[in-house]
Structures are given as C-alpha cells and as structure tokens.
C-alpha cells in the first residue's frame, strides 16, 4: 500500500478524531480546563458528522486492503459519532460533579470512538483488530475512571481481563482462518470459501474461536458474564458508551464479515448463531427480572437486545441489514436516553442505580420520569416509540426468511422483558415515599435536560414517522 494513493480527504474522519485527541492531550499538558476540552470534543465530533453528511454520504471507495467505506459504514459511523456526541454532552455534568481529573476522559472517549469507527469500515483482519484494540484499551480506563469507587476499579479489572482474553480468542481464530485460506482480507476469505464445498475443520475451529471473541464483545449468552458487573461498576455515561457505540460497532463488523464471506451457507455457523440468539433472548430477559439494580437490569436487557439483533443478522439479505441499521438507531437513542437518566439522577457519592432511587420519581421530577418511561417503553417495543418500529423491522426480517423459531422466541422474550421494564415504570409511579433521607440529591444541569429532551423527541419522531429514516437507510445501503 502506498500512502500517496490514498486521498487524504477520504480518511479525514479518522485523522480528525486523532488530531482532536492529540490537541486535547497537549492542552491538558498546558492547563486543565474542563470546559475547553469538552468544547473541543463536541466540536470535533460535530465536524466529523458534518463531513460525513456533506462529503461522504454519496461517496463510496475502498482504502486497500484495510478499509471499505460504503453506505452502510458511513451511516453507522455517523450514528456512532452522534451517539458519542450525546454521551459527551451527558458526561460533562456527570464528571463536573465528581472527579478532579476529568479532562483525560475526553481523550479516551475520542479514541474509543475512533476504534469503533474503524471497526465498522474495516474489511481486513488487521484493521479489525486494530480498531477493536483501540476501542477496548480506551474502554478499560474509562470503565475504571472513577478510581475512588471500589466497584469501578473492580469493573475495570474485570473488563480488562475478559476483553483481553476474548481478544486472544479472536486472534487465534483469525490465525486459524488465515492458515487455511491464506488471506486476511474478507474478500480473500470469501474467494477461498466460494471454491470450497464444505468448511475444513481448521476453518471451523477458526470461526468458532472468532465467534467466541465477537460474542464476548457483544455480550451475548454464554459470553455475557462481564456485562452486568461492568455496567454496574462503570460510570453511567461510560456504560451508555459500552452499551451503544462499542456493541454497535461489533454488530456492524459481524454483519459485514459474515455477509461478505456468505457464512450462512454453512449450517454450523447458522446453528451456532441461532443458539446464541435464542439463549441471549431468553436468558437475558429471564435474569433481568430478578435484578433490583437499574443498571444491571439494563445490562441484562442489552444482552437480550443483542439477541434480537442477531435475528435480523441471521435473516440476512437487504431487509436484514436495513432492520439491523434501523434497530441500531433506535437502540442507540433509547439506551443513551436511559443511561442519560441514570447519570442525571446520580449524585456525588454514587450512581442512581438502586430501584428505590426511582420510587415516586414521577412525583418528584415529572419531566425526567416521563423521559425514562418513554425510553423504557421504547426498549419494550411499545408503539409511538422508535423501539417499536425497530422491533417490528426485526420481526419482519425474520418472518420474511421464515425464521419462525427465532421470531417466536423474540416475541416471548419481549413479553418477559415487559415484566422488568414495567417494574421500573411502576416504581416511578408508586407514590409511597419513606426513603426521603436516602434519596439522591443530584444537581440538574440544563445541558443534560436538553440532551435528554432532544433524544426523546427524536425517539418519538422515529416511532411516529419512521419513513424519513427508512428512506435514508435505504439510500445509504444502495
């Protein structure tokens, strides 16, 4: 690869993010200023988004052999960037009240975003792994960012060990695939597989190990153990980031890789993903019922939601990719909204994670409670919300390819899911107050309220009038 052949404008988003994080680092070296760094972060994210909107939306090209910048990738990159923007808006108030060294967080945030953005456009094992590691390593320190909280440290260590472990699995899997196919390029592997009638054993083992590695990052059953602990221990905005940007990037990679190599020809792969999807939907939902910690509930619910996404992934085809894209938008909006509520209600000492913290919230902070109710209803897939249309899309793609079992389990999972979403909502509406002394005393920042408000409006808008978004997705996928 000769550098001169790459048009510098094409890879501008990455350069932009890297430069922004470098400038942030340098400015910290000179003088710490939370507002400045925060402003820099939001402006650079906005810049990337505007670039994607203006320049990249009709521009398709590849950077051989590492990257493919197609409509799907551009769309998801835009989504990731906007999500990070929302998260950083929520983070400002959160870290302003807490940590004395809050500036480095934004460097990590930008780098993690970069990692995720690389993941969604990579078409080569090397870029895949690079993106993944940039993402993961930033996340280790983001999870453990509030050093004074023991559980934050614990979560960080847990995430470090398990994520490193899963990376090892992924690497080994990639090596095995490479040893058989002789290529680390997705298209090279596809070429090899199209000539092969059945999957060689080494290749099977390689894919198996890769699925384990990917499964860890997605947090699907049976590789989900880290999810609740990390969600619980990490600061609320970071949890939002893990739930959305980090998982979303991986989903896109999964779709891209298996669509390109046409992995659905091989029953072994389909079977293993089917089992993973069903187990995630059922176990994720079932375990969530038993939780009394809102962050853990959302963690288990995200396990189930990844199971739902796998249904559309398995359905494949044009409709499947559309469904995944739409669902990711809905899921991102909703989850950032939900964790935004958690972070806005958190005070100096701890996050608002106990279900008792939400007792009677509707009577204390009606606006926040309404937002949270809307977000939970969207997660549950109730009409008038984006979650409904998203889930509808998933079911439609599943029914289209006649994956009746998966679709049926999805329906059952949604019903089980109702139990715990409704539990939180019912708690918020429950008036019996007695825990006044225990209640958190958060400082409400206008910027958080506005962010939440915008998120809910968008979420409702896409629920009532999804046509615009659907058209846009179809445009990008052309």
């Amino acid at each position, binding site marked *: 690869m000769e550098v001169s052949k790459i048009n510098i404008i094409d890879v501008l988003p990455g350069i932009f993010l890297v430069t922004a994080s470098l400038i942030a680092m340098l400015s910290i070296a000179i003088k710490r200023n939370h507002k400045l760094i925060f402003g820099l972060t939001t402006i650079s994210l906005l810049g990337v988004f505007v670039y994607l909107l203006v320049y990249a939306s009709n521009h398709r090209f590849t950077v051989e052999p590492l990257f493919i910048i197609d409509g799907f990738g551009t769309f998801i990159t835009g989504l990731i960037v906007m999500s990070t923007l929302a998260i950083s808006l929520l983070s400002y108030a959160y870290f302003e009240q807490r940590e004395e060294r809050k500036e480095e967080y934004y460097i990590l945030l930008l780098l993690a975003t970069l990692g995720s953005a690389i993941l969604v456009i990579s078409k080569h094992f090397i870029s895949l792994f690079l993106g993944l590691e940039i993402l993961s390593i930033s996340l280790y320190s983001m999870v453990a960012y509030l050093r004074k909280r023991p559980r934050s440290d614990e979560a960080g260590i847990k995430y470090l060990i398990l994520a490193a472990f899963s990376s090892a699995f992924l690497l080994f899997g990639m090596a095995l695939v490479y040893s058989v196919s002789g290529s680390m390029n997705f298209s090279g592997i596809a070429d090899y597989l199209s000539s092969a009638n059945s999957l060689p054993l080494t290749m099977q083992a390689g894919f198996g190990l890769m699925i384990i590695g990917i499964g860890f990052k997605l947090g699907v059953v049976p590789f989900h153990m880290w999810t609740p602990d990390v969600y619980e221990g990490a600061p609320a905005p970071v949890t939002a980031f893990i739930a959305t940007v980090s998982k979303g990037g991986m989903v896109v990679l999964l779709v891209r890789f298996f669509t390109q190599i046409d992995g659905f020809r091989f029953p072994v792969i389909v079977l293993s993903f089917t089992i993973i999807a069903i187990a995630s939907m059922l176990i994720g939902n079932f375990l969530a019922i038993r939780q009394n910690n809102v962050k853990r509930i959302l963690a288990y619910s995200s396990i189930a939601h990844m199971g739902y996404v796998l249904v559309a992934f398995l359905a494949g085809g044009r409709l499947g990719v559309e469904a995944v894209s739409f669902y990711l938008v809905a899921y991102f909006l909703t989850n950032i909204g939900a964790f935004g509520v958690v972070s806005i209600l958190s005070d100096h000492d701890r996050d608002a994670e106990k279900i008792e913290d939400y007792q009677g919230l509707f009577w204390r902070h009606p606006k926040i409670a309404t937002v949270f109710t809307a977000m939970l209803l969207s997660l549950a897939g109730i009409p008038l919300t984006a979650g409904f249309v998203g889930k509808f899309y998933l079911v439609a793609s599943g029914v289209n390819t006649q994956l009746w079992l998966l679709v049926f389990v999805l329906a059952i999972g949604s019903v089980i899911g109702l139990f715990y979403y409704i539990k939180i909502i019912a708690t918020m509406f429950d008036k019996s107050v007695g825990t006044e002394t225990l209640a958190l005393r958060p400082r409400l920042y206008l910027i958080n309220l506005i962010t939440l408000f915008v998120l809910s409006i968008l979420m409702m808008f896409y629920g009532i009038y999804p*046509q615009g978004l659907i058209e846009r997705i179809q445009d990008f996928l052309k």
Partner: protein
Amino acid sequence: MILVAFIAVLMIGGVIAWITSQWNSILSRWISLIALIVNFVLAIFIWIQKPTIESSNWIVQFSAQWIPSLGVSFSLALDGLSLLMVLLTFFLGIFAVLISWNEIQERVGFFHFNLLWVLAGITGVFITMDLFLFYFFWEVMLIPMYFLIGIWGHENRRYAAYKFFIFTQASGLLMLLSILGLYFIHGRVTGTFTFDYFQLLNTEMPADVARWLMLGFLAAFIVKLPVVPFHTWLPDAHSQASTAGSLILAGLLLKTGAYGLIRFVLPLFPTAAAELAPWAMLFGVIGILYGASLAFAQTDLKRLVAYTSVSHMGFVIFGVFAFNELAMQGVVMQMITHGISTGALFVLAGTIYERIHTREITSMGGFWNKAPFMGTIGLIFVLASLGLPGLGNFVAEFLTLLGAWQANQVLTIFATIGVVAATAYSLRIMQKVFLGNFSSDKIVPDLSLREKIIMVPLVIAIVWLGLFPQSVMNTVKQMISAQFNTEQIISNDTENENGSK
C-alpha cells in the same frame, strides 16, 4: 377527514387536559368532557345522515401515506359496525369522565390524558383498515389503560395492572407475527407488499398456513374478549381499576376483541375459521356457564360483575362462530347492550363504593330504603343483565341463540342454561345489595344529580335498544350480509375446487 378528527380530538384533548391541569384541574375535566361530546355529536351526525346503509358498505373513508416503504398507510374507514362501536365509545367515554369527577382527585390532568388516549386507541382500533395501524392502535390502548389501573386503582392495583398488561401484550405479539406472516405471503403471491385490509382480504394461502395465521389473530382477540381459560386477567383488572377504568374495560376494551373476530378473523380466514367453529362455540358455552357459576360465588361486587362479563362474552364468541346473519346480529347487539348494562353496573358499584368504601356484598344490604333511586336503577340493570324482554340484552341473547340453534343444537341448549344461571346471579345482586336489612353503619345518600345524569341516559339507552333494536340492526345489516355473502362464495369456490380434484 372526520375519522381523523375523531382520533385527533381525543389525542390533542388529552394533551391539553394534561397541560391545563397544572393550573386548574376542573378545567381539564371540562376539556375531556367537551372533547368527547364533540366526537359524540359528530358520530351521531353521521348516524342520522345514514341511518340505514344500503348500497355502499363504507360510509366514510380516509387514506394517507404513512410509511410507504413498508406498505403502511394511514387508512381509516367507517361502516355500520364501526359506526356503532364508535358511538358506544364516545357515549360511554362521556360517562367515564363524569363518574370520575369526584372520585379522582390526584393527578387529574394525567388521569384525563390517559383516559382520552385509551379512548383514542379504542376508536382507532374500530376504524382502521390497515393492519399495521390496527396493531399500532391495539397497543396504544394498552399503556394508558395500564396506568389507569396501576395509578388510580384499588389496593391490589399493581398486580392487576401487571397481569392485564402481560396478558394483552403477549397475545398482541402473536397477532403481530400473524400480521407479518400475512403481509409476506400476500407480498410473495401478488408482488405488492401492503398492510391494507382490503387488499389482504382475498389472499390465497395453503390451508395449514391459514390455520396458523388465524391462531395468531385469535390469540389476541380471545384474550381481550376474554374466552375461558384466558380470562384470568379480567376479574383482577376490573375489580382493581377505578370506576372509570372498569367502565372502559368492560364497556369498550372487551368489545375490541369481539370486533377483531368479526372484522379480521372471519373475513381474512373464512375456511380456517369455519373449521374451528365447533370448538370456538364449545369454548363459548364453557365461558357462559363457567363465568355464570363463578359470578354466583363472588362476594366482591366488582368481581361479581366482572365474571358476568365473562359469561356474557361467551355469547359473543358463541354467536360469531355460529356463522349466520341472525347470530351475528345478536352478537353486535350483545356488544352494545353489554357495554351499556355492565358499564352501568360498574358505575353503580363505584357509587356504592364511594359511599361505604367496600366492595364486599356481605356488608351491604337494605339500600333500597335508603336510596330508592339507586335501587330502581340497580333493578333495571340487573334485569337487563339477566335478559328480561323489553331491555336490550334480551334481544341480543335471543337472536344469538336463535342463530346458533341452526348451527349447533346441543351447544345451544347448554348456552340457554346460561341464561337461567344469569337469573340466579343477577337476582343475588339485587337481594344482597338492595333488599334485606340495612346493616352498614355508613350513611348511604341517594344518587346525586351528577350520578343521575350518568344513569338516566344509560337507562334510556338500554330500554330503547330493547324496544327498537331495528334501528341498530339496520345500521349493521348491510355489513353483516355482505360478509356472509362473500364467505358463501368463497366456501363454494373451495368446495368446487375440492370437487374438481
């Protein structure tokens, strides 16, 4: 446009009522009341213009694009059946607002928001002709109803609200799967992917696929109706909800299930439904008898009335699957008269609860002397519930049984026993609540002016339906006969096909 107005008035009215309650809770009550009266007058206006529908089935139609890329349109249409149901919705809606005038003192704005949105969802269900939109409204009814039960209900409200929500949501999802199944089958056969009811009507599909898809629809409707053994959410929800909640549940929400059977299950899957008919009728009879016997055993007045609903709704599924015009007319009558009479009984139970703060009928008795007006009203609706000639329910049950006799004689005999059982539980209400010795230490004043304003129109309606049922039947006649004619053709066709093979 008038159909859009029906829904828009309710939804916008709900939002305004919520906002205004910050300054004045009385104002939000008036806003809800006015919104419903406006709709009611509009609906009456349509009805007076077209009392008997002869030529075209559809009185008003409206269609607009919504999500064209998925084949979803915002398509509304009104025929005789929808018109009657919409009328009933607004009629009972007015009383739901009036009955909660004093009962609801907390979060008045949010209450009226939920009330109007439930009614908007119900109205939407009755007039939509797009399956996606239908599912959408089907779910829109759910959340506000959950809040109505869960926030303003009685002591065990959380459990009841939970149960209601899970039951209806689970069955609704099965319907969603069926809707999608139908959508894709139709799309593959014809090439147009659409949720439009009229286009989906004559979708060709293999018999076993039709059977499965029908079961999905059926699941949603028989849970809502409810058919024994899927009725267990109903007594809890009814007894725990506030009076307005019970009124809407019994009077309107159950009717959406019946409406779904008539509008969707029979026309979309005529042959599969015909196969199922004997079983459905059997479950109807079981529901009639089981509901009646459990009603007799209850000591909680609202629970008792709830079980009578189970029994009465048994007649609905019994009549629907009898597959003839007579029974179907009976079913439509039953939907309306049950809405009015059972709604009235719940209102009565609510007024008694406001006075003595218990629903236990063991601690009631002798109210006739203290409150003769209430007693008279109670007597009228108890008699309506047991099917006294001259009141609406008699016409409904008589027609249903008459029609069902042509379909299945043994089951009809058993169903008729249900009418006898209705006499037993109905008279028990009368005896325990209004007759006997006055034992309560509470003061029981007679109905207030507001309560009389609620009760008297309901009495007039039920008597009018009993004496002049023809006016209602004329409205639905065209719709029902059209349905059976097309079904006749289809079943003839299939017979021919089978014969030619």
